[in-house]
């Protein structure tokens, strides 16, 4: 930033590299001049992503546990969520618009439904991966079904569940961009407005920030998982 301010006075007569006349892909001036706009979009992106995944998780957990307890419902829940996943995001948003209008809620509900599919499958897979001996031992020790679920099954299912949460989060970061169609797509808004004006610096910056955000959230979740499951580290080593 200091270097940039040193260079700027000499180049004052030249148009900035993000002006339409120059329109370069890589442009430091764009990052410094429009940083606030980028920051706002990034914050919106993070908030929409986190709200969607949180809502998806809040719905997926009880659904997966229900499917686990009532095998007859399992096919219904799994195939129902798979059908949701088949619906293209743009169509999903268009279904929600008459109900929730052009608000962030439309995007959040749509994206939560997508993460639901990934999460339900992985929570179920995680619960299935719990060794039968562990469950028998818990039953033998007189655990109630609820206590067995929260103390034995959930912790042991955590690695697979967290893998699903990571996939859901990374996919949601990418899909949030499509929310630009209703005006709430975080960095996607910059992509959509950039494509109309062929604004290359803005398009590249928004795309790179999207990927970086996905990587940062993925690493953060991986770290959380290591903290939550110290026993896997011992066994893994």
């Amino acid at each position, binding site marked *: 930033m200091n270097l940039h301010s040193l260079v700027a006075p000499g180049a004052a007569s030249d148009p900035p590299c993000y002006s339409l006349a120059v329109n370069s892909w890589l442009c430091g001036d764009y990052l410094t001049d429009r940083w606030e706009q980028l920051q706002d979009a990034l914050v919106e992106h993070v908030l929409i992503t986190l709200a969607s995944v949180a809502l998806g998780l809040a719905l997926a957990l009880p659904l997966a546990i229900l499917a686990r307890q009532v095998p007859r419902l399992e096919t219904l829940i799994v195939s129902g969520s798979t059908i949701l*996943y*088949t619906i293209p995001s743009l169509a*999903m948003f*268009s279904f929600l618009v008459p109900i929730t209008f052009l608000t962030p809620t439309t995007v959040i509900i749509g994206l939560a439904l997508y993460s639901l599919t990934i999460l339900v499958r992985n929570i179920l897979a995680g619960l299935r991966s719990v060794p039968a001996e562990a469950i028998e031992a818990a039953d033998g020790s007189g655990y109630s079904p609820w206590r067995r679920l929260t103390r034995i099954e959930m912790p042991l299912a955590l690695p697979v569940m967290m893998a699903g949460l990571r*996939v859901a989060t990374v996919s949601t970061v990418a899909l949030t961009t499509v929310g630009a169609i209703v005006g709430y797509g975080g960095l996607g808004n910059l992509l959509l407005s950039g494509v109309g004006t062929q604004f290359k610096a803005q*398009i590249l910056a928004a795309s790179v920030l999207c990927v970086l955000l996905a*990587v940062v959230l993925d690493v953060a979740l991986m770290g959380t998982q290591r903290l939550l499951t110290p026993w896997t580290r011992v066994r893994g080593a």
Partner: protein
Amino acid sequence: MSEALRFLFDPASWSGPSGLGAELSQQLLLTVTALLLACAIGLPVALWLGHLGRGGALAVNISNVGRAVPTFAVLVLLSVGPLGTGVFGAYGRAGLATLVSLVLFAFPPIVTNAYVGMREVDREVVEAATGMGMRGRELFGRVELPLALPLVLTGVRLAMVQVWATATIAALVAGPGLGNTIQLGFENQDVARVLGGGILVALVALVLEGALALAARVADPVRRARSRSGVKAVSAVATPTS
């Protein structure tokens, strides 16, 4: 809702160069072309690597990158870049940029599932086949590929769902397809158009998915021989997401 249905059943909405009929056929053409191209390039490489047992990291990395990079960003980058200009034959405005992005996004599920499918073929079966004197091409064609086929086709199906969804978004970057109807509806605050377009897009997605699922069922040689293998095919679907 009833207005959306009226929009869908009105012959006037289907006719013309930007009617539903033209947009639907454009999007179907794009989806099928992209899927065939991705299969033609991705499947041989993934199956061969799976046969050799090498390149596992490649398959995992491709699927991770595919998930983290937004399809929308790639569409925008390609359409503003050198590929974005002009009309590409029957594929319409910005058709080339759209086609290339669709092929790129068809790769991850196709490559990952084909590779994993080949690696998950029971090693004992492969050893037995080798013991019977099968080598290279014969082992691949008569043992590994038939056993890997359910997962390979699952990958193609996942890719198709992805390609169809991405082809819908293409409209936002001046591409062809049914997304244009939805976008026009958003611009004019025409809920019937938005909802009608959405219903059509979702319906075709479900029909395509169902058709491929059915085709995979019919094509599976093991399922035809033994109904028990259905269990394996279902559990395999969850593999790429975990």
